[in-house]
């Protein structure tokens, strides 16, 4: 067995072990820490699958921002929960769940092992159309140009999620700001961390967005980093979550999907059909759309973590 194969096998065993401990840990903080470790190991697997863009997204959003959100939620839920709520399921339910789990895993394993050889692929079409977009990174081309409608709908889903999270709050508090992300008196070390890291992080985030046109990166990954920087600033209490009826906030949230939609609707006038970009102008238009997507994602993710409005709207 070659070194690389041994590495892959070791990684697979490690991932399954960490996933098992994630499921088995009773305490929520321990389970979330296990999940973040699992997400980081998964990013390495994505690198082994030659998908660096996905590895970046998984590390940033899949385990990073999700981990922050679940840890904050776990802290809120620490008020004593009724004993029956935390009681593990009975033995028959566990047995049936295990049977179902084994069946589902076996079915998917069968699919994996019986995949047609070679699997159907769109790589050739992507290569042929890549030159027309002027981009070097095929993933960015797929996201913003070949499957642009899917990405537009994904941005709208993010916007709907923010509206849903805001709607969960009580009616009488609509319009006020969400609860603060950090403790009332932040640690000196946290403030130092924020002052040292955030300016650099903003630079890194914008760089990853810009470089995503030709190399692994893009608006989602860069946006996640910018979102993390804003969350660090809010956790260190150097800035507070904005009121949800603030006009600048709503403009930033809507800017990404709106610019994307307008670019798509301008397609028939400019290049012949919905979401077509004129030849020769494709790259500037794509980067223009991506810049607004970056802004939207950087503002949407922290708002999703901050939660529903909480306070007095007339203040």
């Amino acid at each position, binding site marked *: 067995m070659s070194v690389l194969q041994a590495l892959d096998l070791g990684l697979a065993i490690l991932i399954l072990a960490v996933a098992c401990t994630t499921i088995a840990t009773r305490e929520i903080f321990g389970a979330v820490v296990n999940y973040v470790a699992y997400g980081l190991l998964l990013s390495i697997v994505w690198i082994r699958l030659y998908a660096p863009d996905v590895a970046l997204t998984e590390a940033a959003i899949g385990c990073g921002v999700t981990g922050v959100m679940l840890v904050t939620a776990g802290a809120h839920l620490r008020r004593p929960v009724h004993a029956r709520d935390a009681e593990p399921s009975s033995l028959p339910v566990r047995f049936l769940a295990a049977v179902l789990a084994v069946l589902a895993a076996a079915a998917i394993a069968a699919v994996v092992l019986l995949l047609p050889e070679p699997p159907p692929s769109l790589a050739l079409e992507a290569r042929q159309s890549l030159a027309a977009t002027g981009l070097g990174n095929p993933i960015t081309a797929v996201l913003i140009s070949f499957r642009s409608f899917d990405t537009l709908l994904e941005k709208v889903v993010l916007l709907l999620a923010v509206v849903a999270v805001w709607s969960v709050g009580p009616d009488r508090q609509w319009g006020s700001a969400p609860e603060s992300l950090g403790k009332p008196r932040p*640690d000196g070390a946290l403030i130092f*961390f924020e002052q040292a890291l955030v300016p650099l992080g903003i630079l890194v985030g914008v760089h990853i967005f810009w470089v995503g046109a030709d190399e692994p990166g893009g608006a989602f990954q860069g946006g996640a980093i910018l979102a993390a920087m804003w969350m660090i600033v809010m956790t260190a209490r150097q800035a507070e979550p904005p009121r949800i009826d603030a006009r600048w906030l709503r403009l930033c949230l809507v800017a990404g999907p709106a610019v994307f939609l307008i670019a798509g609707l301008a397609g028939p006038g400019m290049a012949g059909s919905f979401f077509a970009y004129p030849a020769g102008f494709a790259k500037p238009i794509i980067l223009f759309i991506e810049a607004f997507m970056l802004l939207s994602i950087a503002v949407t993710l922290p708002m999703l973590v901050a939660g529903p409005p909480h306070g007095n709207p007339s203040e």
Partner: protein
Amino acid sequence: MSSALDVFSAAAIGAGVFFFFAGTVALLRFPDSLTRLHALTKADNIGLGFVVLGLLPRVDSPLDALRLIAIWFLVQVSGASTAQMIGTALRRKEAAE
């Protein structure tokens, strides 16, 4: 010349792995949260430093070398800050008990 650089890379990365291993042993064997925290931060930072040192001869351009060193620097800053915050939280928990 390149084989000497390869040996240097292997030795440095090996030293880094040894330090990471030592840190993990400390995590499992030390009696107290504070001692584990101390061991982890020191061992992991040195381990990463050795790994970065071992990777430096293999980069394609000086800019990549600067990026690796910047990564090491960022990990040190975030590691130090979080270790400090965890230590404060542990002290607070001890004082409350």
